[in-house]
């Protein structure tokens, strides 16, 4: 399939808006997306599959008398498609019910300027290059230790483009690239199997190190062998970025979204200006972060992305807003109208959720722990109570720390607590910041986490 050019995408979007207005829409918006993905997959120690996908489509949001209709199509070939989609969206709006809090689509604003979100070298990569990346990663893992078995992983690229137009004059385009390589391993020795261990690189620029990923995935798996059970006790815990991402995704990140706050689902409602976390904790929602996974010139509604202060030394400063939730409070959108491609309407989501790093090395953090755990990942975070922040999860893989040193892997340890209490108990931050999807954070040391091991 021939890829659409940015100007073709924008003209499709504008065409949809024009047709909608002509057919009687009060307001109209069209979102056009195109993604070209290429990947090589590893299964059980070998390259097993390759994949090429072209995903594109148009989503039209139409408002009639404050009632919202939406329709999408992934078929963009024929001329009638745009008109059919618009007509379906009009029908949807007519079937829907008015929303008294609807105060209009966003107005046109200059887009933000961003760095490191597009790299033409990624666009130019060939399938052979991806095979080489995957092979280098596998070879490095194999060389590191025979007890580590690579179960799955791979290498892939994505090139994405977006065009948005609306009846208030918004007409914007942007494109971005991504490249990733990842390897999941387990350690096996004498009948013992470790939990899945995982390492990856995921970047917007062509800046990955497959050998490091392979080696590190193997090293983790082997160090998770010979795991022992642990006593029931409250101890210090160092959460690495994976574990932190899992715990925060369903709790803190939701709690600062304006829709959660407005709908009484956030434990942080009415807490602006109050201390809700340790003074070590400063967080920005940074839609402009250099090379950030969610860095774009504008959000899913064409509003420029920005850098919003969320927590300042533990004090809650701002919530994040899309156009609808902002206007409901008479505020401006913070550029957090996220979009699941062309398939749905926008909703509030964080861009790059950036917990600012501290100044301690990883070893330094570990050396501060008399008795505790280093938790790499947790199982079951999605079953947290999303409103209260209470969690009850399994730490896996995780390692015991005694007198400032890692001693052995632990198995079957449950951590129970409340994410908001965890934030209050943060006593140290590493200098080892990295990106895990939308979270950008260092290792975090937390005192007094309840562990149930037996």
């Amino acid at each position, binding site marked *: 399939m021939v890829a659409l050019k940015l100007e073709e995408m924008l003209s499709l979007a504008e065409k949809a808006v024009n047709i909608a207005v002509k057919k009687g829409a009060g307001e109209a918006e069209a979102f056009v997306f195109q993604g070209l993905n290429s990947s*090589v997959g590893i299964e059980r120690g070998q390259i097993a599959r390759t994949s*090429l996908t*072209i995903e594109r489509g148009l*989503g039209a949001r139409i408002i009639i008398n404050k009632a*919202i209709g939406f329709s999408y199509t992934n078929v963009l070939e024929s001329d009638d498609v745009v008109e059919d989609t618009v007509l379906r969206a009009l029908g949807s709006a007519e079937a829907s019910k008015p929303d008294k809090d609807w105060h209009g689509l966003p107005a046109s604003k200059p887009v933000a300027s961003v760095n490191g979100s597009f790299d033409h070298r990624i666009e130019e990569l060939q399938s052979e290059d991806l095979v080489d990346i995957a092979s280098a990663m596998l070879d490095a893992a194999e060389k590191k230790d025979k007890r580590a078995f690579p179960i799955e992983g791979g290498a892939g690229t994505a090139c994405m483009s977006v065009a948005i137009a609306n009846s208030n004059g918004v007409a914007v385009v942007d494109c971005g690239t991504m490249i990733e390589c990842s390897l999941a391993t387990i350690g096996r020795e004498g009948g013992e199997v470790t*939990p899945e261990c995982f390492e990856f690189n995921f970047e917007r620029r062509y800046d990955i190190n497959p050998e490091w990923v392979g080696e590190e995935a193997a090293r983790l798996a082997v160090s998770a062998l010979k795991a022992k059970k642990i006593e029931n006790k409250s101890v210090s815990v160092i959460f690495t970025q994976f574990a932190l991402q899992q715990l925060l995704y369903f709790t803190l990140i939701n709690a600062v979204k304006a829709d959660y706050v407005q709908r*009484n*689902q956030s434990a942080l409602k009415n807490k602006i200006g109050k201390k809700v976390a340790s003074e070590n904790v400063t967080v920005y929602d940074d839609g402009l972060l250099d090379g950030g996974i969610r860095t774009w010139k504008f959000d899913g509604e064409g509003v420029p992305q920005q850098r919003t202060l969320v927590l300042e030394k533990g004090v809650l400063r701002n919530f994040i807003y899309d156009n609808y939730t902002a206007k409901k409070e008479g505020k401006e959108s913070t550029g957090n109208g996220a979009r699941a491609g062309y398939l749905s309407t926008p909703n509030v989501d964080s861009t790059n959720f950036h917990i600012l790093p501290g100044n301690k090395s990883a070893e330094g953090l570990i050396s501060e722990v008399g008795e505790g755990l280093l938790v790499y990942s947790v199982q079951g975070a999605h079953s947290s109570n999303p409103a209260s922040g209470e969690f009850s999860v399994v730490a896996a893989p995780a390692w015991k720390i005694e007198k400032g040193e890692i001693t052995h892997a632990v198995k079957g340890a449950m951590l129970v607590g409340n994410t908001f209490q965890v934030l209050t108990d943060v006593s140290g931050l590493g200098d080892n910041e990295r990106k895990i999807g939308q979270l950008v954070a260092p290792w975090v040391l937390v005192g007094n986490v*309840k562990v149930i091991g037996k």
Partner: protein
Amino acid sequence: MKEILFKVVDAAEQKFGAEYIEVRAQKLYKTMVTLEEGRVEAVKQGIENGAALRVLVKGTWGFASVGTLDVKTLTDAVSDACKMAEAASSRRKAPIKLAQTKAFEDMVVLKPRKDPSKIPAEDKIDTALAVNDVVLGYDKRVRSCTINYLDLKGTNFFINNEGAYIEEGKLYIWLGVGAIAKQGDVFTFSREAVGTTSGYEVFDVETPEKVGQMTAKRAVEQLRAKPPKGGTFPAVLGPKVVGTFVHEAFGHLAEADLTLSGSVLSDKLGKKVGSNVVTFYDDGTIKGAFGSFKYDDEGVPAQKTLLVKDGVVVGLMHNRETAHQFNAKPTGNARAEDFRVEPIIRMRNTFIEPKDCSFEELVEDIKFGYYLKSLRGGQANLDGTFQVGIQEAYEIVNSELGEPVRNASISGNTLETLLRVDAVGKEFELWPGVCGKGQSAFICDGGAHTRVKEVLIGGSA
């Protein structure tokens, strides 16, 4: 349609050197409604048409997906897929092979009593609003209610170069409800769902009244619940919880791709892993169930697959590739979420077979333990460590149900826990859900009340 697909298959085989080629085409129409406290966020409708092309070239998979059914574009895409597979095959030690299977020619036409595509969007909004009104009207402390309604209807086309050609109608209806109650600083959360592959008549049985009540009642009751004691206790798992346990803690490990990856079941086929009352099935043939279908996405008929019989592992869930490796028969578990992705091994309707205990018999020997009635979600690891989060639980004190308990979860090692199952109840229930394994799949799980001698309970802080 058939003609276009034939041309693509021919080109792949004859021009581009594919040993195996399959094309899955999809024509799909979706309707979605989201309600937040009765506010209609938007009525959404969409078309998803496209094709997935999968080839084996020199023993390596090539896959391509395009959002069109145009023969020229499909032919170009299959050519690219073959080239890329060939490039990757140079690094492969042993070629991938597929188990033999009968090539079916079939046309599966759905005849729902109430076809959701013929029901106006206004009626769907009204059904969702009725649920909303029950939830928010139940008690003042219920603060928010989110309802997500989805229906999808369409046709999947399957063709391969072994002579299979299948057209199968697809229909799914899903209504998910989430409620949050608040009292002081205590937040409780409750969710329920309706899911079916039959028709819109599901709401005649799962009425808005019934679904709304169940959701709201739990959220409110949990407000006065206390945190559980952490530690090891006897427990009775309700059908929803045991279903999730069977799905997460055992089912995933018995998906043959994960078994091959070294899951703790990898050396357990034919061996006893559970007590005598443990019998598990994964069944794709239950009429109207959310995880049922006639053919999987490799053209293999769905079936009722016995996984564990009287505590002994007797079967795994296979696609054609793993079936060949195990010298077994494909079980019809290869499923793809849509035309954008490749089929992988997925569960269908997974459950523990009922036995003969009444609920009273299950709790009668328990001095102190927990009744875990409804879950929030679960997850398992290849080493057999599982976790299931609980949204509704009660203490069992001296053989009777006691105080409600909130935010509990259970965890442990699957194999150790299966040996500790000592009694199974008689009433069978099956509940719909959505399982994530990189892709989403509509499934059911369930069974009957099940007693475990001891399991690790993780309490609140």
